[in-house]
């Protein structure tokens, strides 16, 4: 006996269930009959003779502005030639007929229209940026070559060709791999997207929303009527902290060199300039860069595609003495008036370490040791502070971790420490301590980290996350997002320690024995520190840069801020294989600071 009937379940309720199911299926069958038999003819017509297609319309990409509202990146119209493979009857003769009009080999055209794995209705871009001659030739022959379509599409253009190329980044056609990861976000084959730099970091804001038309086309692929249309929505505009004039100056200063310049506003961490040399022209990427050109850029031993400001890794050299001095003062390991002797040589264990000044500096106090960048003073200071404290102060000054700038691919650098060596089962030697104290060895920092460090010293101890954007504005002019300075930490220094440090840094440029004299600007107090990152191992004698082949010459560092009493700019300059920081990097910092002060002066007048 079934439970349902047994327990008095009503047959009427059972019937309700059966009828509900039967009725539902009845409805489905009725609908089928309606679609397939009654309206079948109409649908068959839509399906076969005419077709409904979706034509996507690319949006305008958001523009990029500098801090004064000058446009850096915009869109320009381009006449692009597309082919809808489905409408091409005989692909080979089509390619033969089209090739002479464009001056392309027919095989290339054939290859593009016979790609597998994509819808034959999706237009394939054959050539972008048609010239007027090409355009008119195509217009004349268009009727003989059904399937061709010329569309005006927006293309990325950079108004100051090549300016801030690394920072702005590049835009390019989406790859298969990117597509598979991003399909859910509405990307399709043939779309453009930001590949590097700000274009990639702000892609979601800059890209805009695609529009589209549902069109009915005839057998030759010509649009008969538009059934429905949705306008594309332009991307959002990005406003940067960058100053166009300062950026241009920074790039001029690096012309013919390899290296980087980063300028920050010390009061906010805002990036005023970020230059990396050698550079490239990002506009070449916007239209799909020719293979041989890309190869050349990619295989260039000077790596023009790398943004050295955030990805270049160098030993900090003597610039690190700022951190060692700060640690020694803050931890009470040295009396600032205490004098240590430099005789040019410093024996330690079996080895002898040298000062960069062969004859030695004589008796030095802390301030003079910084001003004259005495190595032997800092060897002794390093031994007093110890490697653990040096490493932890290095981290407190922002080394060894990413600054958090909103750009893809930033490098964290590396701070050596006894803990790191212990992890590899190795001992830490005193020899490594003294090498670390003058910023050499396996120590690696980026120019951006250096700029942020000196900016923190300049502003009284606040370590900011470097800021590149001020705000994002939608097409109606409404602010969507705005970015405020973000303090990431404080230097662990008392105001007194900081003041001593700043006095010494001012002396580096202003004292007549200072290593940074070359950064001196009459009428302005500049504070800074030189550095030289060794490329070749320290030898018996320090060779002059001119005595070495280019690739073995040291990298030159200079970090600075000005005006010393109320800093408005903090700069880090690195010149690869430039030799001494004082002679190769300091003059660049001087010129940049001068430019900045004159820009500020102009702003004050208006």
């Amino acid at each position: 006996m079934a439970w349902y009937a047994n327990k008095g379940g009503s047959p009427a309720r059972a019937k309700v269930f059966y009828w509900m199911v039967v009725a539902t299926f009845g409805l489905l069958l009725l609908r089928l009959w309606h679609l397939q038999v009654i309206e079948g003819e109409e649908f068959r017509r839509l399906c076969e003779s005419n077709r409904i297609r979706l034509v996507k319309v690319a949006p305008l990409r958001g523009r990029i502005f500098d801090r004064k509202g000058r446009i850096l990146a915009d869109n320009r119209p381009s006449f692009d030639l597309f082919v809808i493979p489905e409408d091409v009857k005989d692909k080979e003769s089509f390619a033969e007929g089209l090739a002479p009009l464009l001056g392309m080999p027919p095989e290339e055209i054939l290859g593009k229209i016979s790609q597998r794995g994509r819808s034959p209705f999706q237009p394939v871009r054959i050539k972008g940026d048609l010239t007027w001659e090409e355009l008119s030739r195509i217009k004349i022959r268009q009727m003989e070559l059904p399937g061709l379509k010329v569309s005006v599409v927006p293309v990325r253009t950079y108004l100051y060709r090549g300016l801030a190329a690394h920072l702005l980044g590049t835009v390019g056609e989406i790859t298969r791999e990117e597509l598979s990861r991003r399909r859910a976000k509405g990307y399709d084959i043939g779309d453009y997207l930001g590949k590097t730099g700000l274009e990639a970091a702000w892609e979601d804001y800059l890209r805009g929303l695609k529009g589209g038309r549902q069109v009915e086309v005839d057998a030759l692929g010509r649009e008969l009527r538009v059934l429905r249309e949705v306008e594309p929505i332009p991307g959002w505009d990005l406003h940067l902290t960058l100053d166009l004039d300062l950026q241009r100056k920074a790039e001029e200063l690096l012309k013919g060199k390899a290296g980087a310049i980063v300028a920050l506003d010390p009061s906010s961490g805002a990036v005023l300039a970020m230059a990396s040399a050698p550079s490239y022209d990002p506009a070449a990427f916007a239209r799909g860069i020719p293979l041989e050109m890309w190869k050349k850029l990619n295989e260039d031993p000077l790596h023009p595609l790398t943004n050295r400001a955030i990805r270049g890794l160098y030993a900090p050299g003597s610039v690190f003495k700022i951190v060692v001095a700060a640690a020694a003062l803050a931890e009470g390991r040295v009396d600032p008036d205490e004098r240590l002797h430099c005789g040019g040589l410093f024996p330690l264990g079996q080895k002898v370490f040298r000062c960069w000044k062969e004859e030695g500096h004589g008796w030095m106090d802390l301030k003079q040791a910084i001003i004259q960048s005495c190595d032997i003073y800092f060897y002794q200071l390093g031994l007093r502070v110890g490697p653990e404290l040096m490493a932890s102060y290095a981290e407190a000054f922002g080394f060894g971790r990413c600054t958090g700038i909103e750009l893809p691919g930033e490098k964290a650098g590396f701070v050596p420490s006894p803990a790191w060596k212990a992890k590899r089962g190795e001992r830490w030697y005193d020899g490594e301590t003294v090498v670390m104290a003058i910023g050499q060895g396996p120590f690696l920092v980026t120019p951006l980290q250096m700029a942020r460090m000196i900016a923190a010293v300049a502003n009284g101890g606040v370590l900011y996350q470097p800021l590149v954007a001020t705000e994002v504005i939608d097409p109606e002019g409404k602010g969507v997002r705005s970015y405020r300075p973000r303090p990431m930490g404080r230097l662990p220094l008392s105001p007194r320690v900081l003041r001593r440090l700043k006095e010494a840094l001012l002396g580096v440029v202003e004292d007549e024995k200072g290593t940074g004299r070359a950064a001196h600007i009459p009428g302005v107090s500049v504070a800074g520190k030189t550095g030289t990152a060794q490329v070749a191992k320290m030898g018996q004698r320090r060779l002059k840069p001119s005595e070495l082949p280019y690739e073995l010459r040291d990298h030159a560092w200079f970090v600075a801020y000005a005006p010393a009493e109320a800093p408005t700019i903090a700069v880090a300059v690195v010149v690869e294989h430039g030799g001494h920081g004082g002679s190769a990097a300091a003059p660049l910092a001087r010129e940049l600071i001068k430019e900045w002060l004159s820009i500020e002066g102009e702003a004050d007048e208006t």
Partner: protein
Amino acid sequence: MRRNGLLALVDWKALTILVALMVMGLVNLWSASEGMGVPFYQRQLLWLAVGGFFGLLVFSIDYRHYEGLAYLLYGLGMGLLVVVLLIGVEVGGAKRWIEMGWLRFQPSEYMKLGLVIGLARYFYRRPRPRGYSLRDLAVPFLMVLGPAALVALEPDLGTALLLFLIFFGVVLFCGIRRRSLLILLAALASSAPLGWSLLKDYQRRRILAFLDPYSDPLGSGYHLIQSKIAVGSGGLWGKGFLGGTQCKLQFLPQYHTDFAFALLGEEWGFVGCAIVLILFLLLILWGLETAFKAKDRFGAVIAVGVTAMIFIHVAVNIGMVLGMLPVVGLPLPFFSYGGSCTVAHVMGVGLLLNVRSRRHLLAPRRT
């Protein structure tokens, strides 16, 4: 009645319907494979075999043994749903799959069965001859809410909705007091605006596209129109096997999964579709009959739950393909390509056969 082997227990009529549906689904996927250049039907065959194995396993153990395991199975399903949110593989913006080596499966498909068995045990242990009140239903409601919420987070709104509908079907079957039913329906209606606000943008667009297919010509509205064109162009007799130009030309991106029925409609016409619909109808009516004839309430609720699962899948999927319902991501059992869905549905039929065949055996311990 004497027990003389598993073979004597099998309901051959239902098994024939099942095999017929499997074969038709496979033939349809073969055509889809030809169009896409990917041999889906080969893997689908593998899934059918795996499903057959587990279906047989599920069938051969007397269903009353499942009662003791019910909450364990339910808990296992819940655990997997949590795992999928933590370490699941994301495809197209939804985290629905767990990957272990070459094996990839979708816990939400198996949770449907886990839920049915869990509900069956609950209602079996708490008979209410005069119908269930809202208070009685609080616990089973939470039993649905849990997995539905987890599934909705993936996000897979279609399956979350399906779990609620299964619950609703089971409650109607077990009997609910009239007043409670009215309150429940009123609550459902008033919570609709809240639900709307919780939907993701693409989900809202799908519903709007259904209400006005031309409102979203770029996305789901386009699919709906193309789906209707594909089915409609099939006419009375269809364009024949491998003759579906509309789908083949990739107007519909999912014609091997959610829109498989559109391909069937184009190639086999009204006649082919009607045959498939009638086979599904027979299977579902047989499932209902199984429920009403079950020996005990445990078996009855299992049968009605599984039947509801199949019915809702079929009705919602075909309703969507024919443009009668919004684009909800529910596959058509045996026709849509997909491992977990296929295996779970064959196992479901295995459960139905189990309940059906043991309706004359032994007296139940409890009613």
